């Protein structure tokens, strides 16, 4: 408990400097974030309810940037004291970690830029390379190295990078190098209405295959230390219409740490969008064939990922709709999703409108041999509709229905679970500052854990205070109650939230990537501040 209080005090000290700092002629900006939990024993969770010996976990991030004209530099320090339960970084040797997770020096003018340090970047849609940070996942696969880019007007843009990837608190022993080229044909030919660009990327990962005698890659069909990946892309936009496509291929590789024999990989991504006035539609198709790509052949875990293969499905903010999120089958999947939006707005009164949204996503295994049945199996299907109605300046209601069907065996067996989820969400503003939001949810299912109910009540006093209580209860098989209550206080750039509750084991997903989080009960302090 003392440590929760100390975390809060340390954070307040940082937030006290809640203004931008000019250092000489340059400028210093930064941010601080802490997420700390004091775990308690909870017999209501059975064996899973035993708190860790230390009873405490704390993930902390301090980022500072300095800008002076075209020059900028920065660093980020991460402290896991120790890492919260469920974060893979906590399973690395030594539970307590404090280290410099990112640093950089950059020079940038109108056409040219060079960065030395930890690189966050992406080629195309990230199918062959994406380095990024996601603190909800404890994920950071930035590349420590050098990146240069040059732009020839709006016509051509060239980018090249080289470095070694971060693997949790250390670096992988591999080297990654790549280049990206983008050519805007519409700018070259002076077209204003039509946007057309052609792009291509190349990425190479080099890693010696003889670093561990226990791992015989040759017997698994991997004979080259070099992995090569290629991407070709086309982007087209004309008035309300947009069309984007990407094809990628990779040389022989082990897509996951447990893959028995090396295989080639490829992927296709296509997106079509159209909008006219208040109507818009967007469709995405994706085929993945053995596209999992590790930073290091010797590493494991979610963080050991060089490219970005998110689940292209709807991501919900409602508890029960997010209970069993889809996880990508990197071995092979094919499918897509469609979103349709339509808004009917009162012309005399902007604050009265209907907002209609429908979404459909479905994914199948790519090849028959992925299943013991020898057939392509359904991995995921979600048909959902939501209707949002802003009645007037005070009252807004949202109704959502989702039909979800998911395969608990990732397509290996012919078996799916079906859930029907109903949500009602009402927000009422009493006056200019006070408001109440109420959510009621029901999950109807004959399978897996059966039926669930959930609710949330949130009372806010703008612009500073918010108090909430939520509850999620399995009324069918486990009869377990997951409750949470707390408050948040926001002042300008600083937000603090203190809550206490019981959390269900499951996948925490962010940006379509998921990590498993165990069940726990505890007191949670979350604070963010920037200056």
């Amino acid at each position, binding site marked *: 408990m003392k440590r929760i209080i100390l975390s809060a005090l340390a954070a307040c000290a940082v937030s006290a400097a809640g203004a931008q700092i000019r250092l000489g002629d340059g400028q210093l900006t930064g941010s601080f974030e802490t997420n700390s939990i004091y775990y308690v024993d909870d017999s209501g969770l059975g064996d899973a309810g035993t708190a860790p010996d230390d009873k405490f976990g704390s993930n902390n991030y301090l980022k500072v940037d300095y800008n002076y004209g075209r020059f900028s530099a920065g660093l980020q320090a991460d402290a896991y004291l120790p890492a919260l339960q469920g974060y893979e970084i906590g399973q690395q040797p030594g539970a307590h970690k404090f280290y410099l997770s990112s640093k950089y020096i950059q020079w940038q003018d109108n056409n040219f830029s060079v960065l030395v340090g930890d690189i966050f970047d992406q080629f195309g849609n990230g199918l062959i390379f994406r380095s990024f940070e996601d*603190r909800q996942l404890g994920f950071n696969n930035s590349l420590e190295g050098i990146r240069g880019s040059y732009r020839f007007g709006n016509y051509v843009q060239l980018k090249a990078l080289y470095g070694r990837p971060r693997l949790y608190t250390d670096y992988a022993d591999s080297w990654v190098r790549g280049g990206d080229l983008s050519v805007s044909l519409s700018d070259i030919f002076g077209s204003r209405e039509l946007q057309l660009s052609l792009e291509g990327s190349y990425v190479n990962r080099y890693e010696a295959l003889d670093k561990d005698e226990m791992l015989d890659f040759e017997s698994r069909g991997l004979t080259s230390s070099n992995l090569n990946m290629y991407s070709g892309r086309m982007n087209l936009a004309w008035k309300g219409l947009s069309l984007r496509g990407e094809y990628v291929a990779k040389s022989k590789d082990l897509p996951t740490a447990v893959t028995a024999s090396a295989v080639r990989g490829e992927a296709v991504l296509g997106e079509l969008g159209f909008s006219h006035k208040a109507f818009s539609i967007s469709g995405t198709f994706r085929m993945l064939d053995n596209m999992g790509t590790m930073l290091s052949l010797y590493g494991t875990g979610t963080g050991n990922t060089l490219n970005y293969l998110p689940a292209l499905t709807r991501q919900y903010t409602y508890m029960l709709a997010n209970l069993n999120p889809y996880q990508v089958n990197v071995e092979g999947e094919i499918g897509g999703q469609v979103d349709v939006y339509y808004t009917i707005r009162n012309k005399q009164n902007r604050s009265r409108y209907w907002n209609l949204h429908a979404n459909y996503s479905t994914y199948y295994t790519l090849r028959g041999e992925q299943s013991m049945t020898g057939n392509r199996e359904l991995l995921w299907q979600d048909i959902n509709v939501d209707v949002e109605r802003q009645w007037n300046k005070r009252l807004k209601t949202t109704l959502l229905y989702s039909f979800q069907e998911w395969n608990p065996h990732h397509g290996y067996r012919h078996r799916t679970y079906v859930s029907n989820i109903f949500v009602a969400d009402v927000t009422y503003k009493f006056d200019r500052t006070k408001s109440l939001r109420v959510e009621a949810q029901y999950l109807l299912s004959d399978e897996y854990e059966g039926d669930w109910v959930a609710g949330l009540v949130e009372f806010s006093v703008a*612009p500073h205070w918010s108090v909430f209580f939520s509850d999620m209860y399995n009324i069918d098989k486990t009869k377990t109650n997951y409750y949470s209550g707390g408050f948040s206080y926001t002042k300008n750039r600083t937000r603090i939230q203190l809550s206490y509750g019981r959390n269900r084991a499951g996948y925490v997903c962010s940006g379509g990537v998921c990590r498993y989080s165990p069940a726990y009960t505890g007191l949670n302090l979350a604070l963010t501040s920037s200056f």
Partner: protein
Amino acid sequence: MAVCTLSAQSLPDVKVETADGREISVRSLTGKKPLIISFWAITCKPCIQELNAINDSLDEWRELADFDVVAVSVDDVRQKSSAKAKAASMGWDFICLFDQNQTLKRAMNVSLTPQSFVVDADGNVVFSHSGYTPGSEQQLLDKVIEISKRK
């Protein structure tokens, strides 16, 4: 010797994508009138609530001050096309930008969404708040009016 003072943060020189797929520098939006810059994501309910609240009041607000609203989606490739579709259908009278790899988000030290900034006509950040509770959008308008009166 370096002198440490407190002053306004300038908008970083970062390139983001427009709704029609062009790349523009965020700084190119400054120099004309004040901006409200709001970071949002399609999975962030309070973000969309805040943008809707601003959009609902926009006609009244613009009678009090001349400004633009910039909605920056931080959705990555997973949700970017859906975010573009939603932004197009909502009838937001905003400049919609898409920060796919969260370069602008990192450069402006945005740890959580929603986070909104008020930027004066010279490109200096004069106010920011994170999170959203219904009614807190009034702070943004108050700040825009305040900097408009300074001119």
